């Protein structure tokens, strides 16, 4: 494989070297089962404990509030199902129209099973209206599930204000923070969040591991039933190498938080230059209330897949929409919910940076992108001239 300029970090990230180094011993000599009755397994148990503390530290939580999962999707599913199971009499859910499929598709299924679901709408900048939430929430609302930051646009929701409203009405508050963790500081001690999902492969841990924060005192019913692992909150032999990796990744993410400003500078440079040198372009999503690493840009009159493949030809990885819907032909439900004009909807590209993105890489993108856009616009029947 040739080297690539990887600007698709909201889809997945590279495993950082330190993380790989931390997990490798658990893929080789320390292969015991942490639940086993011998010291060989016991040593492994200690590594799991350390990892749990590292994640708790990143979230400002207690180690006992962390449950390991296999991915963000499992975390979202487990959280939502647990919240509903804890309050079987309440039959109403509030979420937003721009959630990830892991929340949205589950909510759609739950609707078929007798739940009523309110999907809060977003405006053209991707923001929700708290009045709409206030109007929708009732004593029958079991759960408010809102993402911390949107994976496609990076737009950040006012989580604590949403949480206060949820708490006032006695609803459980779940936050899909898969895209926010490691990019914005989080502190569960002072938060209204009851359940929070994170996914390892978005923060430089490998795929196949995630975690769920469960506030102490929250009634929790496991999604996976079986052995007593994770203190009865997630059955199945622990993914020890993954857990150790996630712990290390959390530690690194925590220490990286003070440098997020540099990532943002690079993102802004990319974005501002594109807007300046390529006509008929616009940023999708609120310009400020946004993750520091994400830029979603609409290129009018051309189609996203064509842009992506052309970038790919030059070894640049980006995406349109989320990876798990890129197999489908529909334009992004997030951009559609924002009411963007069709000319933009089909030609929007997400660039998502990581702490490993360099100035040289961004410069190379800025060198190539204008030619690609020009070429495709020349092919397009809608090209203005």
């Amino acid at each position: 494989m040739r080297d690539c300029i990887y600007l698709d970090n909201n889809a997945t990230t590279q495993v950082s070297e330190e993380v790989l180094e931390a997990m490798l011993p658990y893929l080789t000599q320390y292969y015991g089962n942490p639940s086993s009755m011998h010291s060989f397994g016991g040593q492994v148990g200690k590594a799991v404990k350390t990892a749990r503390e590292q994640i708790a530290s990143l979230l400002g939580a207690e180690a006992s509030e962390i449950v390991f999962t296999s991915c963000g999707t499992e975390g979202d599913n487990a959280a939502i199902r647990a919240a509903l199971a804890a309050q079987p009499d309440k039959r109403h859910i509030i979420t937003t129209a721009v959630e990830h499929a892991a929340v949205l598709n589950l909510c759609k299924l739950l609707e078929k099973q007798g739940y009523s679901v309110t999907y809060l709408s977003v405006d053209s900048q991707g923001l929700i209206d708290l009045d709409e939430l206030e109007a929708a929430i009732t004593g029958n609302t079991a759960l408010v599930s809102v993402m911390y930051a949107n994976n496609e646009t990076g737009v950040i929701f006012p989580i604590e204000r949403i949480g206060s409203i949820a708490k006032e009405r006695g609803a459980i508050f779940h936050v899909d923070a898969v895209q926010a963790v490691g990019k914005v500081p989080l502190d569960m001690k002072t938060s209204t969040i009851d359940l929070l999902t994170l996914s390892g492969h978005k923060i430089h841990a490998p795929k196949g591991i995630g975690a769920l924060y469960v506030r102490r005192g929250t009634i929790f019913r496991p999604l996976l039933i079986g052995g007593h692992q994770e203190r009865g909150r997630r059955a199945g032999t622990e993914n020890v190498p993954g857990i150790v990796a996630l712990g290390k990744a959390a530690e690194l993410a925590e220490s990286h938080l003070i440098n997020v400003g540099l990532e943002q500078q690079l993102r802004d440079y990319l974005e501002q230059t594109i807007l300046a040198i390529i006509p008929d372009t616009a940023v999708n999503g609120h310009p400020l209330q946004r993750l520091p690493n994400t830029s979603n840009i609409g290129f009018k009159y051309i189609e996203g897949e064509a842009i992506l493949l052309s970038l790919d030809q030059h070894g640049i990885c980006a995406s349109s929409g989320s990876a798990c819907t890129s197999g489908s032909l529909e334009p992004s439900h997030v951009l559609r919910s924002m009411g963007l004009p069709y000319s933009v909807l089909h030609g929007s590209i997400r660039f998502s940076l990581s702490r490993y993105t360099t100035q040289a890489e961004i410069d190379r993108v800025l060198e190539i992108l204008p030619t690609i856009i020009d070429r495709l616009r020349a092919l397009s029947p809608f090209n203005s001239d």
Partner: protein
Amino acid sequence: MWEYTDKVMEFFYNPRNQGTITEKKEGEKIVTGEVGSIACGDALRLHLKVDEATQIILDARFQTFGCASAIASSSALTELLKGKTVDEALKLTNREIAEYLGGLPEEKMHCSVMGQEALEAAVFSYKGIPLATHEEEEGALICKCFGVTDTKIRRIII
């Protein structure tokens, strides 16, 4: 990610016959066929230059708004059309377009249908026949992009 053949990628990166036709001589006619819209995310404008005496397509060009396979299919279509008479051209199926490209992923077959529809529109326009609008087709609209109905897809692909 879609599995495109090398030929699809070649026709996407280096499309043949892009653009419009403006120059014509005595006895030649330029016509245009159009399908799709910006709303649905795919659109194709096909331009033909036809020799009125022989009915032979002298030149074919395209403008496409769409995915890689739509662009490649449009370009392949123009290659296939040149040298054919308009009646021969009408017999061209979307499957032949796809085959010319070494195949398309199943989910992307409709991109080649778009080419066939634009061709139909252009030839009908050449012959002065009004084109039946898509809404009159039987069957449910399955691809809102360019008004292909499922009955039509079955007719076209199978």
